[in-house]
């Protein structure tokens, strides 16, 4: 079911891409003689890729789910670890906190935003030891900040006082 919803969403998105965005792009340069070239123009690859996504989404929608192979020899190249219990609520909470961190970091600086981010995660996901959680929430951003800013000379966002 998840796969079908996924495929349907991408089919609709690719239709919008092919029927609205690519023609818009075509219109933006087709009247300018400076942009006329022999062969393919700037919309060729987008049309090809959008068309491929549309066709493959439709095929994915109708693809029959493969029966479980009793003795699999080749596993799919997965970059993720095996499945466990899934909670949309936990995912939504974490994504919201991460989004907050991303918005806050350029304003409050890396250190402050990181401490708040880790604190919020440990609090909402109920860290087993409050003491360890506090130590990690403060020490980890400090160590990362020290490493990146002082050792690797990478300019992290800082808190603007004035």
């Amino acid at each position, binding site marked *: 079911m998840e*796969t079908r919803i*996924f495929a349907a969403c*991408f089919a609709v998105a690719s239709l919008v*891409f092919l029927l609205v965005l690519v023609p818009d*792009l075509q219109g933006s340069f087709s009247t300018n003689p*400076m*942009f006329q*070239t*022999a*062969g*393919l123009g*700037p919309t060729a*690859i987008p049309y090809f*890729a959008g068309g*491929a*996504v549309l066709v*493959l989404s439709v095929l*994915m929608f109708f*693809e029959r789910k*493969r029966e479980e192979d009793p003795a699999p*020899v*080749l*596993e*799919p*190249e*997965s*970059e*993720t*670890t095996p499945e466990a*219990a899934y909670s949309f609520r*936990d*995912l939504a*909470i*974490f*994504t919201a906190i*991460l989004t907050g*961190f*991303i*918005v806050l*970091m*350029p304003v409050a600086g*890396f250190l402050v935003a*990181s401490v708040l*981010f*880790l604190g919020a*995660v*440990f609090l909402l*996901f109920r*860290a*087993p030891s409050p003491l*360890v959680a506090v130590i*990690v929430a403060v020490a980890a*951003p400090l160590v*990362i900040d020290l490493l*990146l800013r002082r050792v*690797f000379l*990478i*300019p*992290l*966002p800082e808190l603007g006082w004035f």
Partner: protein
Amino acid sequence: MDIFLNSLAGQMQPLVLLTMVASVIVGMIVGAIPGLTVSIAVALAVPVAIFMPTDYALVMLASLYAAGVYGGSVSAILLNAPGTPASAATAIDGHQLARQGLATKALNIALLASAFGSMFSILLLVTFAPLLAKFALRFGPVEMAGLLLFTFTIVGTVSGSSMIKGLFSAALGILLATIGSDPMIGVPRFTFGNTSLLDGLTYIPLLVGLFAIAEVLKMASEGFPRQTHDVELGDENKARNRLTRSEMKAISMPMVRGSIIGSFVGLMPGIGSTISAFLAYADIKRSAGPSSNVGNGDIRAVAACESSNNATGGATFIPTLALGIPGDAVTAIILGALVMLGVQPGPLLFVTNPGIVYTIYIVLFLSTVMMVIVGLVATRGLVFVLRVPNLYLMPIVALTCAAGSFVVRNNVLDTFVMLGAGIMAFVFGRVGVPVAPLLISFIVTPPFEEAVRQSLAYSHGSFSIFVTNWFSLIAILLSASVVVLVALAQRRRALPA
């Protein structure tokens, strides 16, 4: 020779060696922690690497890669939880050995086989990459277009369990790569008036999101599960865990066969070390016969899988360096980092900048040696790292990702690209769409588009140029054959017996 000696001397600097040791240790630790893969280790290092001198950056990235694959086998053997997908095959027999009180033996065999596989593939890399590059120097845009078409096909068809999903991922990678200025005439495409998008989607946030954030989101959706530990190395019988001469003899052929399989797989873009390890496992199971112990704790299986997945790592550098086509997701990340450092992998690299090529050879060799030393000394220490709860680890990974994505251009848009890529890759994981084809396609689309459009400009818009050129024609025919063969094979598997 002078260039080689200069590169070698460069790698002998104390600070370079220190970078290498630190990267090997970090690579092993990250590889060993289930959920943190080699791809994540290398992806997280890229934002740091682009601020370093090229030599140091290469040392860091290549060492992380070399050590990370071995690190994955530690948790595979001890916890039956592969640290990286490439170690999943090792877990089958490795963990059985650990349960029989032979964890140290299994770990030592994994280390030995990993080093053997790496050295084997480095030898191939040194031998064949220059030859391939010399051949590829004759390529014009038509040949390049054919070769890249073949890359898209291979990457899409064989890197997942479903060809449709693999090709879908590759097509989406092509589509995302079209965002930004057109490579031929500079028309802005799908930028919506945002000047930050004129250079396209920034590469680092995309890869950090695809690999690291996706895994963090996955862990978050599972409430940051705790690991279980059922193996203690302290109680082992030391005499039983010593490797005997007959055991060394028994694992020698599986290591050679595994290395050959792994190297061959590494030459093909997009297949990766997970499949090579399972192919080596299938090979050792077949060659050992039905009465063998394979599946119940056989040292030959551990040796075959580990030599194979490490050989793939070295061999993936052959197409990456010689053709500029990444062999797998990790070399795709390294290739992108090299481009950001001003080094363009491809046949010309061997002519214009041989020092970089030698540096990569030397770094891969030295990091393998370092991996053996650190592995022998510190593998037992990795057991302690495995006890760090995910709840403390994963949010730190997330904030490092966000900071790394932000500092590339000091642009908050990049951190949103990272988050978007992470959510997309998380959804991909839920529905079984592989991520590697997307990244590889994203990287090879700009040269593909340039090659196709240049070819058509030469031929005044006629597509016949692609079938009148023998190399391009062979590439097209091979691509079509691969699609048909894989489709037939998957159809056969889908049909009820």
